[in-house]
Every structure is written in structure tokens, then in C-alpha cells.
């Protein structure tokens, strides 16, 4: 997992978010204010620009650039939350990057979100996708799985975590204003977290294929 891996991950995440922009916005329209797709699309587009303007020379730097850009360009709730997550990951990540190192950094990112947003699992937020993903990574490290397998499991866990927000009643963010009416809708932030984890797994596939070549 070199610097290029992380740049590709972030670019891939940007593409997936661009493609799912309307779906994210629709999820946010149902229980929020219909801007999550626009927010993240704007943010990750800026991340891609920043990665071109200041090409990172180390993995941690890629994550720090992404985090700072998201904080500086997104606004809303998701900007500071995702921004802090990437910055915390970047700060915790050691070079050269190993799977255990990545898992620990990822967990630091999740903790940053929890600390800033004061949300806990079950509150129907991005935490409900991020925390299961982090647990999946840690478990994969313990089992000694390959990065490819670990990222794949994390992506699946995030997907499942996002879907699991559907029956939840929101306790944080805008959706909490709806009370009981928030039940029955997927949380947009959890859905975007699943996209970002999906991108991670996707890049790992590419890497794995490269290794085979």
C-alpha cells in the first residue's frame, strides 16, 4: 500500500460518489435536507484537485490532504466529520503501511468521528457503517488475512451496517428531528461511508490483480 494506492482509493471514492450523488441526495431528502450528494461530490472533487495540485509523497500525506480539503470545502455535518476522520487516519498512519497499521489508523478515524459528532453506534449515522468496517479490519488482521480479503470484508460490513440503519430511529443529525418518522430510511452518511469502503475494496482488487501480473 504505497502512496499511489491511497490516491487511487480517494479518486475511486470520488467517482463512486459522483455516480451515486443523486441517490445520496434522495436519501437525505427523505430524512434530512437533500444535500448530502452535492456536499460529498463537491468535497471529493476538491480532494481530487488537491491531490493533483499537491501530489502527496507519502500515504499519510494523501489522507491528510483529503481530510483538510473536506473540512475546508464541504461544510455541513459531513464535511467536518469525514474531514476529521481522514485527518485522524493520516496522523495515525505509519510508513511503510501494513495491514495492521492501516486497521489501527482506520480505527483512529472512527474514534475521531465519534468524538466530534458525539454519536454512538445505533444513532443512525455514518458511525453505523464505519464502526462495523473497523471491526472487520481488526478481525481480519487477527486472522492474518490478506489486505484484499480484509478490505473486502470491511466493505461488506459497511454495506450491511448502512442497511442496518434503515429500521433505526435517528438520535443524531437532522434525521433526529423526525423522531419515529426517521424509521424506514437508510442514513445517507452511512450510505456514503459504504461507498468509500467499497472503493477501498475495489482498489485492493486492482492491487491484487497487479501482484498476480
Amino acid at each position, binding site marked *: 500500500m504505497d502512496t499511489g494506492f491511497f490516491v487511487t482509493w480517494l479518486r475511486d471514492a470520488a467517482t463512486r460518489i459522483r455516480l451515486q450523488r443523486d441517490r445520496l441526495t434522495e436519501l437525505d431528502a427523505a430524512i434530512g435536507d437533500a444535500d448530502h450528494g452535492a456536499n460529498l461530490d463537491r468535497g471529493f472533487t476538491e480532494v481530487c484537485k488537491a491531490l493533483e495540485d499537491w501530489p502527496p509523497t507519502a500515504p499519510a500525506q494523501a489522507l491528510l490532504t483529503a481530510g483538510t480539503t473536506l473540512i475546508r470545502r464541504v461544510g*455541513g455535518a459531513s464535511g*467536518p466529520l469525514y474531514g476529521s476522520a481522514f485527518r485522524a487516519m493520516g496522523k495515525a498512519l505509519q510508513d511503510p503501511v501494513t495491514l495492521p497499521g492501516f486497521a489501527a489508523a482506520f480505527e483512529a478515524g472512527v474514534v475521531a468521528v465519534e468524538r466530534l459528532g458525539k454519536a454512538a453506534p445505533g444513532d443512525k449515522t455514518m458511525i453505523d457503517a464505519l464502526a462495523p468496517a473497523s471491526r472487520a479490519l481488526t478481525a481480519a488482521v487477527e486472522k492474518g488475512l490478506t489486505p484484499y480479503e480484509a478490505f473486502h470484508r470491511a466493505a461488506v460490513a459497511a454495506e450491511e451496517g448502512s442497511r442496518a440503519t434503515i429500521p433505526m430511529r435517528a438520535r443524531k443529525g437532522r434525521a*433526529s428531528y423526525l423522531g419515529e418518522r426517521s424509521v424506514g430510511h437508510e442514513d445517507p452518511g452511512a450510505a456514503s461511508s459504504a461507498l468509500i469502503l467499497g472503493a477501498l475494496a475495489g482498489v485492493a482488487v486492482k492491487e491484487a490483480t497487479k501482484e498476480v501480473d
Partner: protein
Amino acid sequence: MKKLINTAQSVVEDALSGMAAAHPSLRVRERVVYRASGPRAGKVGLVSGGGSGHEPLHAGFVGYGMLDAACPGEVFTSPVPDQIVEATRAVDGGAGVLHIVKNYTGDVLNFELAAELCDDVQVASVLVDDDVAVEDSLYTAGRRGTGATLFVEKVAGALAEQGAPLAEVARVAAEVDERSRSFGIALTSCTTPAAGKPTFELPDTQVELGIGIHGEPGRRRVPMASARELAAVAMEAVHGDLPLAGDLLVMVNGMGGTPLMELYVVFAEVEAFIRGKGARVSRSLVGNYVTSLDMQGFSVTVCRLDGELTRLWDAPVDTPGLRWGR
């Protein structure tokens, strides 16, 4: 969707150009709206901000007797910390700066991050949370900040103009918030430029009770009713939370798509309701002040006045959105 815009992406930028062109008393720089006259030495600076789409809030309240700067975010999206940091540094006249923050996760986080970054400026914060449609409990993000924001900006702005220190300005701001309550009702959803279609669908026979100012759906739908009945629903909600008593400042606020004529019809009912409870409308505002794009509907905000607040409310103000006394 038909909107008077160039592109959904440029709408905030374009509107700010229009504001700058229309109001020589304002300066717009890097997505921050300032008083053209700049900071005044020794005066506490007032900075507010939030998503766009609530005009005239906040930028329309920049000027003598109210804000020193406003930080408009994208439509319904909190501003980013950079804007707030810039604004805070620029308006500091040496007496510190008050951040007036509506209680939304995004606004709170971005203002918090900004405050941390302004370690060279003395910053105090007031959180506005007046919307009784949201239970203030562990199970929500807490009450939303809506109409009372205008009251807080006006009253705190007047006290700052008179040279009061930061702690005093922050105290009066918090007091206005504590004494204020709001409730909103939507007849239609708004349409954000980016989404291009209504945030929610509301049949012609129903209204949405307890809406916020971001096109969020409300707590409950009920059949459409007369202005009298809808005003009563809103006022009962307010009264149930903070009993109406004494002299009140009352705003009947349009959500952006409701004509003034209808707001006056609602105000007549609100005033009668208040009289019926033995309280009195001592000051009032009727109009589109804290809006939600093109949404049709209204909100009522009530603040229990005392002598000091009344004096500060009456003090001169000179902004694009609110002006008297000069």
C-alpha cells in the same frame, strides 16, 4: 423546477454578487459578507452564518446594530471553518467576537472547528435553539435554531453597538434564546436548486407540522385547515413550552413562498390567540425573514421581553433586511 438562477452550482456566488451590487453598505470577500465600514475598535464583533437559502438571514442582517459579518454556506449547508475564521479575524476590534450559531450538527461543528483555529481572537459562542417542534432530549440533536436567530442577532447587535464587553453581549444573546420559542408549518415543500425537485411531497389536502428551515419534513401531517386553526396549532405548541405572558416580541415569518397578505392574516390570528391568553404583543415583525427557499408556510417566534430587551430591540438598526432609527 423553474428558478431564477444561472446554474445550481453558482447560485450562492451569484446571489452574493447581487447583494454586493445592491448594498454599498456591504462588502463581499471570499464568501463572507462584511460591513463596508469595517470593524470598530473596542466594539465586540458579531459573526453568524449557516447554509444559504434562508435569506435575508444572515447576510441581510449585516450592518449597524446587528452583525459584523455573515458566513453563507452552500444551500442548506453550513459554512466551512475557513470562512468563519476569516470573518472572525476580520471583524475583531480588539474586544472579541461573538459567534451566533444555530443548533444544527453542521453549524455547530464548523463553528467549533473555526473557533479552535482562531486562538488569537477572544471568541464566545451562543447556540440558538428555539424550535419547540423538536424535543430537546438525548434522543435528538437538540432543538433547532430558527426564527429566534434574528432576535438574538438584533438584540446582541444593539448591545455590542453600545460598547458592552463580550461577556455581556454573550449573556444577553443567551437570554434572548432562552426566552424565545418557535414553531413552523409548511403548506408545500421547498425545492433545492441542486436536487431540482421538491424535498418532500405534500398532497393538496395536507400540511406538515413542525418543519424546520431546511426543507426537512416535520413531525406530523394533518389535514389543511384555516389560518385560525393553523395559527392555534403553532401557538399552542409554543405556549405549551413557554407560557405566553407579559409583553411579547412576536414574529410571523414567511418561509419564502408565502405572500405577505397571508402572513398578515396569520398575524391577526396569532395576536388574538395571545390576547386570549392574557399576554400582549408589544413588538412585532411580519414578513419573510428566516426562509426556506421557495417553501410556502409560516413560522411563529415569540420572545418574552423585559425592559432591557425591549430597549435593545428598539435601538437603531441599519441592515438590508431590518432597518429603523437611522
